[in-house]
């Protein structure tokens, strides 16, 4: 039973992007922990964003030459405009996750009874004395938080040292645990609660199929809906585990403490999550969505749009930097962000690109070559597609698949996975466009970490475990409003914000207030059939 405490770590990353452009980043990826596997799984995300943006503004006045102010204004408006949709896109899965948890809590008694506790919570609050209980809860949550903080730091160290394999192994192992062992436990208790007999062979067959499909769709490819469903289920399962194995008051204290930790980790200048995200930006990589354990941050996946780049661009235009031999990502980016972007785009579009090993040779008009780490090329294409307004529509539409193919190739090289069969590449290339270009709205999805799902669901599930539906509904509404406010703040501040504190604060407040004050009142009204 100890292993699952590590879970939250795996589970919670978030990224909503208030980035410069509030462009939504992670369409296919769904809500988070999706592309934790290296290499190709990152590609679809970038891709779609390209497709989305290029399709969206072929005729928009999004020139490369626009003034900053104007851009900012438009971005703001655009951000707001799509904001409402994004909020709903978060509401639906969050509500679904809570629904699963609440339904389970109310129908399966197993998750409501306390018998076994986590290893990390040695004090079991069994004394009838309130003072002792509070002391126990505080001590438990302190221990749990120390574990969480240590895990976060370990993660950052691993990430800084580029131990991707270790991190991915960690993620895969933990989702394996959830998808097989805890799902089996869940199935068993579900069958027991409804008194349904089932033989072991059938149960194992179901579990095998369920688990393997889940592993594939979470860590590799899968239909978007399936992937989302699995992620929601995994989050719900984790929330149930917390509800089951944490002592009563510890759960509440942990909820409060983890939101505070979230606040610190994201907002303080040396906060671990912040460091992690900034490192990811520096390296122009996806933050491992599945992995940031600490807790959910709503951090921008700013990608190419973070402030440094912006200043770079200004510098570049001042100095008139043009073609240069590029060894590192930034100068190339600078070049592209420069007003010559148009030329580069044409080069990309018209000339073939040779990819050799980790280097990319990009022929330039003046007989020079741009050499870039292939990893960085990934970003270039994003940039130039963002600025691709000047192209004909035809070009822009065909552009998506093309750049995608290129990126697949590039990525295949850059991951350095030499033993990956060549055939693999082609397969991915062909299959992806079909998969990625399906529904329009999906292209601009938002990422919300599974950690958010988990702790929101823990709160609502815990509230519902007292058997009062009014408290549950109040919690639910309060959390959604908190989420709304967080997103609104995100649009206003345009900086990284933690997703937990506002929602959890509202949720806790409404939970206790409803339970203590409103419950007797509404019960009295209901009993007397008086309607207010």
């Amino acid at each position, binding site marked *: 039973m100890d292993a699952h405490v590590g879970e939250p770590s795996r589970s919670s990353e978030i990224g909503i992007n208030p980035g410069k452009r509030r462009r939504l980043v992670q369409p296919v990826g769904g809500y988070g922990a999706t592309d934790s596997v290296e290499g190709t799984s990152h590609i679809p995300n970038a891709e779609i964003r390209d497709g989305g943006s290029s399709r969206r503004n072929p005729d928009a006045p999004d020139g490369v030459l626009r003034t900053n102010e104007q851009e900012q204004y438009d971005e703001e408006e655009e951000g707001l405009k799509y904001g409402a949709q994004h909020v709903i896109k978060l509401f639906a899965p969050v509500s679904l996750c809570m629904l699963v948890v609440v339904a389970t809590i109310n129908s399966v008694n197993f998750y409501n009874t306390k018998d076994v506790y986590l290893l990390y919570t040695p004090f079991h609050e069994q004394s009838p004395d309130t003072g002792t209980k509070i002391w126990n809860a505080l001590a438990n949550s302190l221990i749990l938080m120390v574990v969480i903080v240590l895990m976060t730091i370990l993660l950052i160290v691993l990430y800084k040292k580029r131990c991707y394999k270790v991190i991915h192994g960690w993620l895969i192992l933990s989702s394996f645990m959830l998808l097989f062992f805890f799902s089996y436990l869940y199935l068993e208790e579900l069958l027991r609660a409804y008194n349904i007999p089932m033989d072991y062979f059938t149960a194992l067959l179901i579990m095998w199929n369920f688990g393997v499909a889940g592993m594939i769709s979470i860590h590799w490819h899968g239909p978007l809906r399936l992937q989302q469903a699995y992620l929601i289920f995994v989050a719900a399962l984790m929330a149930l585990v917390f509800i089951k194995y944490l002592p009563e008051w510890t759960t509440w204290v942990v909820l409060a403490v983890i939101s505070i930790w979230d606040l610190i980790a994201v907002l303080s200048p040396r906060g671990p999550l912040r460091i992690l995200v900034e490192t990811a930006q520096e390296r122009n990589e996806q933050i491992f969505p599945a992995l940031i354990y600490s807790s959910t941050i709503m951090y921008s996946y700013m990608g190419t749009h973070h402030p440094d780049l912006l200043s770079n661009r200004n510098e570049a235009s001042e100095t008139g930097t043009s073609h240069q031999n590029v060894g590192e990502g930034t100068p190339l980016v600078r070049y592209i962000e420069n007003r010559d972007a148009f030329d580069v785009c044409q080069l990309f579009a018209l000339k073939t690109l040779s990819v050799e090993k980790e280097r990319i040779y990009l022929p330039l008009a003046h007989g020079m070559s741009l050499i870039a780490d292939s990893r960085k090329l990934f970003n270039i294409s994003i940039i130039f597609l963002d600025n691709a307004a000047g192209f004909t529509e035809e070009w822009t539409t065909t552009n998506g698949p093309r750049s995608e193919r290129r990126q697949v190739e590039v990525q295949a090289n850059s991951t350095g996975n030499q033993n990956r069969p060549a055939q693999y590449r082609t397969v991915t290339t062909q299959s992806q466009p079909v998969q990625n270009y399906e529904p329009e709205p999906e292209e601009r999805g938002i990422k919300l970490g599974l950690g958010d799902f988990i702790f929101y669901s823990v709160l609502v599930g815990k509230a519902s475990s007292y058997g009062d539906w009014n408290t549950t*509904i109040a919690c639910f509404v309060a959390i959604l409003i908190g989420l709304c406010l967080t997103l609104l703040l995100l649009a206003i501040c345009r900086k990284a914000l933690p997703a937990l504190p506002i929602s959890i604060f509202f949720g806790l407040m409404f939970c206790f207030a409803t339970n203590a004050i*409103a419950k007797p009142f509404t*019960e009295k009204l209901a009993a007397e059939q*008086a309607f*207010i």
Partner: protein
Amino acid sequence: MTLPEFFGCTFLAFGPPLAMFIFTIAHDPIRIIILIAAAFVWLLSLLLSSLMWFAIVPLRDFTAFGLVFSVIFQESFRFLIYKILRKTEKGLQEVANSPQIIANKHILAYVSGLGFGIISGLFALMNILADAAGPATFGLKIGSPTFLLTSSTQTLLMILLHTFWSVIFFDSVDNSKHAKTAYVVVSHLFVSVMTLLNTSEMYTLTIGSSVVVTIITGIMAFITAGGSFVTFKRFATCK
């Protein structure tokens, strides 16, 4: 009689609101958000009124006291959400995908009214429904056997009434027609106070009066929103 009764009562109370939600709210994200915001505001009003009821200990046994104050709080919070929505109208315009939501002022009123109604309906009925699902049945040995039925009917009426009230209220405040504002408050008080008679099982009287008020208020809301007999006829004959 547990599960069938549960489903029957659930759909009696929440079927029409669910249909209204699906056909008029669900397609527009901004409406969903406003609905939830309205629900939140109603929650605040409930908390305040129950705090009041809770704090004044000697009057705790008189439901009428808490009920009257609750109505007053709800109506003032209706005014509050009116103010909020009108203040943020400009922002909404930017956020909304369709200009319709601002062009037709009644949409905001309708959505927030439905939000009020749904959350109050949920609070009134959810616990009863949860108990109704089993294993016990209400009203076999004690209490009225129609308890569940009357409760869910009244809940449906309250949800519809809240929607109508908001439409009338927003419009009346917009055009400063104080009589209509007063009608909303008074009819809310009337319906709520009438439900106090439910304890003595005078269901015909309470539900009958609520139905009458609902119909009158519905017609008023319909006219307020620009409807007339001609438009109704056109609607009914699908022209």
